């Protein structure tokens, strides 16, 4: 079992494709993380300060249900893509715990993943949870193997840098 963190971005899709090419036939959990509304308010400093936000408190459950549903749809879309690419995948969504990295690692432990796959520089339509800072935190704290997949654009940019760096002066 491997775990792929997925936010629906093209870069996260590229990470799935890489994993499929490297490990065809592997059982895969495609994870999309959503953020509970109350959690987002406290994180962004709006809690207890913004009257407009306060008006939505009563709707927190409804908003969380919508967030969870959207996240599960993204995870399922990722799983469909992963299955088409040759993995044996299922989608899973999870509410953000204290941090995205901690949530990813907790799910990895839950499914006993041999490997956590992360794209870098993902830019989802909504909030991306596969950004560089998350990859960094996961790699620094992971109690298991982590595969970091640079986005195609990032890979190309770095490739030309490396070629220049390795040319003797």
């Amino acid at each position, binding site marked *: 079992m491997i775990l792929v963190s997925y936010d629906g971005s093209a870069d996260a899709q590229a990470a799935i494709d*890489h994993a499929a*090419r*490297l*490990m*065809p*036939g*592997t059982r895969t959990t495609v994870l999309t993380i959503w953020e509970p509304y109350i959690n987002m308010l406290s994180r962004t400093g709006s809690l207890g300060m913004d009257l407009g936000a306060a008006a939505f408190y009563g709707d927190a459950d409804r908003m969380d249900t919508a967030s969870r549903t959207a996240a599960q749809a993204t995870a399922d879309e990722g799983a469909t893509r992963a299955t088409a690419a040759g993995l044996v995948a299922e989608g899973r969504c999870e509410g953000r715990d*204290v*941090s*995205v*990295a*901690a949530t990813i*690692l*907790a799910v990895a*432990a839950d499914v006993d993943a*041999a*490997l956590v796959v992360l794209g870098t520089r993902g830019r989802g339509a909504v909030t991306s949870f596969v950004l560089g*800072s*998350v*990859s*960094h*935190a996961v*790699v*620094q*704290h*992971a*109690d*298991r*193997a*982590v*595969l*970091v*997949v*640079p986005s195609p654009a990032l*890979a*190309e940019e*770095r*490739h030309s*840098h*490396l*070629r220049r*760096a*390795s040319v*003797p002066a």
Partner: protein
Amino acid sequence: MSAVDAALRPVLVGCDGSADARAAIDHVAELLPGAGVTILTVWEPLAGTLMRTGPMGGGGQWVDVEKADAASAVTALACATDGAERATAAGLDARPLVVASHDGVAVTILATAADLDAPLVVLGTRGRGGVGSLLLGSVSQSVIHHADRPVLVVPDADLARRRQERLHATTVPA
């Protein structure tokens, strides 16, 4: 898991002979059974070490640079060969490779990966500063930050265990 894609180029595994490199080799054997792997050991020519660390021209004792470099290359080859033997025993299709570093270890690993068109670079880690630290080693960190291809980082068993204890006890930022 099904058979590895025959068209896949060999995976590049960085090996410095430490416990973490051995863990990385074992993990690759588990994840990609039967895969082709190149076991790379990078060594640094003495002139480069002296330039980097400063004592060049400092009036220190002269050493036989050629002799020192030959010894480093031999040690590196022994290390890569040991790694390849471990990989072969674990069912991988392995060959050793030794490369002298002129631009730093991380750049050398990535330049070699580009030359070989490796689909993946694998590194083991024990954590920076050895026992007690949970952070990633500087070479692994540098490779991830400059990599133009996927990088697999494998913590050795001891680091994994210590991080697991930490994960249960505290919170992870970001």
